[in-house]
């Protein structure tokens, strides 16, 4: 470790925040860009599965709540791209990498939303898992990222409650609604567990990221916490977690549970999820179809500044 690097690590160890213009190791910067960028991409791709039910939301109030939520997610994307920009990468560069397949977004959004209950399940499970990941990141070492996380977490927990409320209505509703709720849980349970990433023993870069406080907890810690939080919620709903091995383990003070099918995880990462092509395709199409719009605004801005210059 160079003296600079040592000093940097000591600042982190003391709990200081690193700010944009300050010195940082190249690896720290790159890792952060990747992590924040993927998180930002996840927010914007995440609009799509939920957007799929806005036009079919069952009441005006549910429609309004869902619109507000999707709007929040786009807003989170904005905060995060801004945070990434402080590291010297533009939003357009990040988007280019998303569109060309060189950056990922959370695989959970490659699963389809098939019934209204899925909107509940996404709020409850997916946002629940996201919060579990994000709450510790409020204490991350990079200042802009930490501050973005604080804003985001506040809204996410609100979303999670709304999702749970949908599940509650469905689970306590007609037999068909209850069936939809159970089916949504069945389909989203394991993909939600996958959101924490592979087991720590299979996870690369983890140690360095934790030293840098870019990552605060291990994947397995967070997954365990998520299961422990979620099981009683499912019980309260009267729904069954689709895991025969689920059992309270008194000794560890948490639930034993089955690992997700990691081969599915890697298939989805490879592009073979149910909706990979559609999700990325929709984003690329939006970007390409919108080129004229962005260029038009740019042309206007140039005219304006030219006119201003001429007037000076």
């Amino acid at each position, binding site marked *: 470790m160079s003296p600079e690097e040592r000093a940097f690590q000591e600042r982190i160890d003391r709990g200081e925040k690193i700010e944009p213009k300050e010195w940082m190791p190249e690896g720290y910067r790159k890792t952060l860009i990747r992590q924040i960028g993927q998180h930002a991409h996840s927010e914007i791709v995440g609009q799509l599965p939920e957007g799929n039910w806005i036009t079919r939301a069952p009441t005006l109030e549910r429609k309004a709540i869902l619109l507000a939520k999707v709007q929040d997610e786009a807003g989170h994307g904005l905060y995060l791209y801004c945070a990434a920009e402080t590291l010297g990468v533009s939003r357009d560069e990040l988007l280019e990498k998303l569109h060309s397949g060189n950056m990922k977004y959370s695989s959970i959004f490659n699963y389809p939303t098939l019934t209204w209950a899925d909107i509940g399940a996404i709020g409850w499970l997916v946002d629940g898992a996201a919060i579990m990941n994000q709450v510790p990141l409020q204490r991350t070492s990079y200042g802009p990222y930490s501050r973005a996380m604080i804003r985001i977490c506040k809204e996410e927990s609100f979303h999670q409650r709304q999702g749970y409320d949908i599940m509650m209505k469905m689970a306590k509703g007609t037999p068909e609604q209850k069936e939809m709720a159970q089916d949504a849980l069945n389909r989203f349970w394991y993909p939600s567990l996958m959101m924490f990433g592979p087991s720590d023993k299979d996870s690369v870069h983890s140690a360095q990221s934790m030293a840098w406080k870019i990552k605060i907890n291990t994947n397995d810690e967070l997954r365990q916490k998520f299961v422990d939080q979620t099981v009683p919620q499912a019980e309260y709903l009267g729904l069954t977690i689709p895991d025969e091995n689920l059992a309270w383990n008194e000794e560890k003070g948490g639930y034993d549970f089955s690992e997700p099918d990691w081969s599915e995880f890697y298939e989805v990462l490879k592009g073979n999820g149910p909706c990979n092509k559609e999700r990325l395709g929709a984003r690329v199409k939006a970007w390409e179809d919108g080129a004229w*719009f962005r260029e*038009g605004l740019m042309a206007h801005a140039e005219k304006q500044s030219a006119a201003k210059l001429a007037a000076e």
Partner: protein
Amino acid sequence: MEAAADQVDRTAYATWLMRMGDNTLILGHRLSEWCGHSPVLEEDIAMANTALDLIGQTQLWLGLAGEVEGAGRTADNLAYLRDASKFRNVLMVERPNGDFGQTLMRQFLFDAWHHAMLTELLTSTEERVREIAAKALKEVSYHLERSADLVIRLGDGSEESHARMQAALDDQWAYTGELSTPDEIDTATAAAGIAPDLAKVGTVWRQTVEEVLRAATLSVPDSTFAHQGGKSGRHTEHLGYILADMQFLQRAYPGAVW
């Protein structure tokens, strides 16, 4: 005779309220289709935000329409259980989105009318109408500011953006006339002081539109032809498809609580 006249007014009043609420409902629906598909993240946010405002206004207008109608229908009943011929929105708001420029142009043309209308409604004889208008006007002032600004920047932008915005304007133009052409419902509600003289709203609309289009270097189309029908329930072929999606859950699971 007194009761009958009252009855007629009540029907006209409820119908008029449905027009307000159906416009916001259907336009909100169309805007929400852009969710995640717009040209830039800020527009995703703005589309969702505008749609959200419009759905909120729908709840108020249709809620009041149900009350005035007095048949026990809620805003949700009206939104989810009427078939197309009972909808009272103008044709403009149900047409497909087209490219983003067409969506923006429609939004501007509607916002300009909506703003003028709501401003007039601040002095409605009906307190409930004044209240809703006041709340909605705050939101719609922002919508208009935003859509006018974008129309100007894109109209006076690149060659392509100019051409697209002019094409969008030409395409939408024949659907603007319906907004300000009064019929017997408009006349009856105006006579009762509930709603303004639509011609007056049309004059303000025209002023705003001409001013913004001039700044946008776009030409106001010559044609005065105006498609009509939405306000009396004669819609385009598009509304049926909107409703098939929108109403699916309420139709497929009658009586369920969501």
